[in-house]
């Protein structure tokens, strides 16, 4: 058996450290992944002593299956609409020669920075009965139903445009990876452009499309914010409702919530297993040695060309209008926002900064003043509290997920091809199989009481719930972090480690000074993307339903509650628009840092630094900078 000398030279302390980390890992895995879920499973079959199937019988005898059917209906319809729109936006910007494609692409990608509760409330603001967009549409189509934007239609419409982000990222990459020589070859063999698209281009996109379809289906199935806010009876909102209900109101609320989340888990597991199986087949990979860059295809038929351009710009308008409107309304005072009309004289920054008093006349003719009831995002205590809480919880969870995954992946790579590495990886991927709501619901019920596993603490009590939220955030983000960081570790040449060891570096020094700096951009990107997603997340904090864990998204969701009633909360809608602008800026900044700054290697950074110095030297007239310094 071959042995390396490194093992012999390791100090005993490292063994103690390894045992400690191993025990901690097992403790966390069991406590925050396995036991809560088993508890949920138990609650379904143990609700009625001696009759394990009572809840299931009750479930199917009542109206509960309708929630499952509704979710399935939404998922199936979303797969169709998201794929139609998603494929369209990618083909229109990447494959066909459409004028203004760069601008169009920017518009289609706005969902990367404008999503979640902010997007749903924004759409609601613009498309509801007196929304600006609905008013315009009614002018165009007078027969149209004014209340069209509610229930299933509203959810489907909103989610269709909200869920194309993955197409904009991954399908775009896939289409850019197509070898143009294959297109040319097909044309040379006599295939017409549409035939080329159907027979040559689309088959190469199928694996990506299949993955996107599965992910869209799961998104539809697990939808939370859109059905909750727009009023659609699907699984997740019902789980949250049941979780907050008591046995005094209805039969087995918790057990039924658990059963719903298990049904969701079952669907997710089946779908992800199918996806995994398909991905492993690895079909339709390009075999070309030197790929030719894709050249955009001009639509030869002038009629189709015009139709394609009109279609592209209609989609652009649909994507961009909410963004533009929300930005504009964020700078309007409350009467203008309330009336949903834009007015130059109503411009204000009050939705962002500062407070104003509101004076009004009572029914008895008395003049009253409500102090500070018009307030900006950064001056409203609830909003600032939500931002602060979400910031801290998201940053902690994103950092924790990164630390766990980096340490684990380093271990996995050190012991690759060994069973223990595979086990660690499987443990970290485990949450991927479970719907987010099952994890959060399980946490909420399992830790609601004095639990022996956490030394008799009740983690669903007062401020403790924040710890629970951080753990839930972390667990949910582990699989994504693992996949990304693992991909980054693959980029580390084994010889780098050998070289460092040859020069006398210990395992820790090699990790800290050689490996970590290489994967750091990816780790920071994972941190930033996870933070971005968690900072505005709604589903998980809504499942916990705790006033101690009121996240920013929950604050946004409730921002317009009782707006203007008795002279309170006068500019709720304006503040919500301003919040959306704030989120868009944060998300945009993070994406820029991740994909712009973070993607630069040392060479590029040194080159930019040199140019900056040369620029400043030129500007200040202090002579030239020595190249490379």
């Amino acid at each position: 058996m071959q042995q390396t000398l490194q093992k012999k030279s390791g100090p005993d302390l490292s063994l103690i450290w390894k045992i400690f980390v191993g025990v901690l890992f097992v403790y966390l895995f069991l406590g925050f992944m396995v036991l809560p879920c088993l508890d949920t499973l138990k609650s379904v079959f143990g609700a009625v002593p001696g009759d394990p199937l009572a809840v299931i019988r009750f479930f199917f005898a009542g109206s509960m299956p309708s929630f499952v059917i509704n979710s399935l209906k939404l998922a199936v319809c979303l797969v169709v609409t998201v794929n139609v729109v998603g494929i369209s936006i990618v083909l229109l910007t990447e494959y066909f020669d459409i004028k203004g494609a760069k601008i169009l692409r920017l518009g289609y990608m706005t969902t990367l920075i404008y999503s979640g509760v902010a997007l749903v409330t924004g759409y609601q603001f613009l498309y509801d009965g007196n929304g600006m967009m609905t008013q315009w549409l009614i002018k165009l189509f007078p027969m149209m139903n004014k209340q069209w934007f509610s229930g299933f239609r509203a959810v489907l419409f909103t989610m269709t445009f909200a869920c194309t982000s993955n197409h904009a990222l991954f399908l775009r990459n896939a289409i850019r990876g197509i070898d143009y020589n294959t297109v040319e070859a097909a044309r040379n063999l006599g295939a017409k452009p549409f035939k080329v698209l159907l027979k040559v281009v689309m088959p190469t996109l199928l694996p990506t499309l299949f993955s996107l379809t599965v992910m869209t289906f799961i998104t539809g199935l697990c939808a939370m914010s859109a059905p909750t806010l727009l009023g659609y009876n699907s699984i997740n909102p019902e789980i949250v409702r049941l979780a907050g209900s008591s046995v005094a109101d209805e039969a087995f609320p918790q057990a039924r919530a658990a059963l719903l989340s298990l049904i969701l888990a079952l669907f997710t597991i089946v779908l992800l297993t199918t996806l995994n199986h398909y991905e492993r087949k690895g079909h339709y990979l390009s075999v070309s040695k030197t790929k030719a860059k894709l050249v955009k295809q001009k639509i030869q038929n002038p009629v189709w060309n015009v139709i394609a351009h009109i279609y592209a710009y209609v989609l652009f308008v649909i994507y961009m209008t909410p963004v533009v409107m929300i930005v504009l309304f964020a700078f309007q005072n409350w009467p203008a926002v309330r009336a949903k009309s834009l007015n130059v004289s109503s411009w204000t920054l009050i939705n962002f900064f500062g407070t104003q008093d509101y004076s009004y006349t009572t029914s008895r003719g008395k003049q009253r003043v409500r102090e500070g009831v018009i307030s900006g995002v950064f001056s409203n205590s609830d909003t600032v509290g939500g931002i602060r809480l979400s910031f801290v919880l998201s940053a902690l969870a994103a950092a924790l997920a990164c630390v766990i995954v980096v340490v684990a992946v380093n271990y996995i790579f050190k012991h690759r091809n060994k069973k223990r590495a595979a086990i660690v990886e499987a443990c970290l991927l485990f949450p991927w199989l479970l719907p987010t709501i099952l994890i959060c619901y399980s946490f909420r019920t399992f830790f609601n009481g004095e639990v022996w596993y956490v030394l008799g603490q009740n983690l669903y009590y007062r401020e403790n719930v924040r710890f629970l939220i951080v753990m839930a955030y972390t667990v949910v983000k582990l699989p994504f972090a693992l996949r990304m960081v693992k991909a980054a570790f693959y980029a580390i040449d084994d010889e780098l480690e050998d070289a460092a060891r040859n020069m006398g570096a210990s395992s820790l020094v090699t990790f800290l000074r050689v490996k970590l700096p290489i994967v750091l951009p990816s780790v920071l990107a994972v941190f930033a993307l996870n933070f971005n997603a968690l900072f505005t997340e709604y589903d998980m904090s809504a499942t916990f339903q705790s006033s101690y864990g009121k996240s920013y998204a929950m604050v946004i969701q409730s921002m317009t509650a009782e707006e203007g009633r008795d002279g309170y909360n006068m500019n709720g809608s304006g503040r919500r628009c301003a919040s959306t602008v704030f989120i868009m800026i944060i998300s945009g900044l993070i994406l820029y840092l991740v994909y712009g700054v973070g993607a630069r290697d040392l060479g590029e950074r040194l080159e930019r630094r040199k140019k900056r110095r040369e620029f400043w030297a030129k500007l200040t007239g202090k002579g030239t900078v020595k190249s490379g310094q």
Partner: protein
Amino acid sequence: MIQLSDIVVKFDDFEALHNINVHVKEGEFFTFLGPSGCGKTTTLRTITGFIEPVSGTVKMQGRDITHVPIEKRNIGIVFQSYALFPTMTVRDNIAFGLKLKKLSKGEIEEKVNTIARKVDLSDEQLAKAVSQLSGGQQQRVAIARALVMEPAIICMDEPLSNLDAKLRVQLRNELKNMQREFGITTIYVTHDQEEALTLSDRIAVFNKGYIEQIGTPNEVYNHSATEFVANFIGDINPLNARAAEGMGLAADQHHFIRLERVHVNWPHEDGSYRTQGIIASREYYGLYIKYYIDAAGQTIKVIEKNDGINIYEPGDSVSVAIHPRDVMSY
């Protein structure tokens, strides 16, 4: 300098090296040559300490280092990929080992500058990221990083294999010059026989975990010890029974002749075997021409210097001459 005695290396049940014995002399450029999976890199990694042998000893300057940790062996390594740290500048790459040795800043600066001058790296290049350098410059950085630690020997694991043909030849020359200048004992691993022949003082030819032959380039090429070495080094013609019989060679052996030792339309020489053949095809290389000649019931490959006059066309009838003293028999 380096003495490997009866080295056996196993990976689980697979024995990768069987009783390897090598003695590398001081200042020598010694090459491990062989096809993929033959054990040359495993032997190198045993010397450098990344692999511990199941049995046998590794001695350096008379001291047994078989169980000495990697970092205490004082062996410099230039890796196949150069293994330059991409997140550090060239200067930081070279200084990495010195910093771990906790030398003073001044000492590190001086040593880095000295070695950089020797391998022809400018101050400007030292401030650059590795990715900003060309392949040749990266090789110099890798060598500088290994040499700055003042190792007793330097080991190179196929450092030219990732480069294109032209750069490979250019860097091969630079490598040899540098080794001569520093006079450092060098162990070089390659599967490229041309590289081994041009660079080495001595070559060990590996096959399936055994060493088939150790010798100078001339010895392994012209006096190949085994059939494997004869076939692996350079191109060669196996001779069939008819040709062997014509030359009076032993029937129970395999006989081979190098391409350049077969002559076309040569004047008669005592003891040589001559036969008539037809040019089947030819490959034009500029400096020389390679002919495929159907003769003595087989196709014989021949290399002829391109003198611009004696150039044969496919279908031409020619005489083929082989002298038995040039035949290698196993």
